[in-house]
């Protein structure tokens, strides 16, 4: 299955991309997506447990990820 990982701000700069298509096995969680990203070049800048949103909603590390999901890795927010 395939999920789209979105990266922003400092995380996008660290990985040199703001959008990564990942091919994963089934039975995948948010944690698996994060680990895959952290194994990429520049990925060590990502914390082991970053804030994550799946399909626009904040999600825990154990949440299941389905094919086609959009998994956004959210750096510490600084709005306002």
């Amino acid at each position, binding site marked *: 299955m395939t999920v789209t990982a979105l990266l922003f*701000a400092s995380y996008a700069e660290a990985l040199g991309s703001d959008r990564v298509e990942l091919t994963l096995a089934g039975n995948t969680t948010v944690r698996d997506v994060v680990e895959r990203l952290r194994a990429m070049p520049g990925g060590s800048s990502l914390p082991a447990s970053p804030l994550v*949103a799946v399909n626009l909603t904040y999600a825990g590390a154990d949440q299941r990820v389905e094919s086609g999901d959009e998994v956004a890795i959210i*750096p510490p*927010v*600084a*709005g*306002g």
Partner: protein
Amino acid sequence: MSIRTAIVRGAIDVAALLAEVESTANGATILFLGHVREMNDGRAVTGIEYSAYGEMAERELAAIASECAEHFGIAHLVAEHRLGALELGDVSIAIVAAHPHRAEAYEASRFVIEEVKRRLPIWKREGYADGASEWVNAGGVAHEQPAQEQQ
């Protein structure tokens, strides 16, 4: 009932937002403005570039307003957050909350800005007088010297 939120790219029209919530049902209106400040953590700031996970930021800001309306009985609330390159003094966020009574108007206004700070997926890169720029809040992960200083 007049609840509206938006993530915008142009200048925020504060007078229009104040007019939008006008109602003779209300005895108190609170406007909160966030601005680009000339100093942060002792460094001279020259401007801020705001970026966002746009689609989610829109949803979260709408959710914050909706929670606020329910929690404080607010019927007139409008909030806009600006993205892009802002200069010193520019308004980055405007929140207008109106209510029959002032206590609720203050609490509602404060609720919105605190929730924005806590959960709106928006980031800012501050530019400094010494030519450097940094992602705010990022714990130094993304500190980057400008090209002309990487000698």
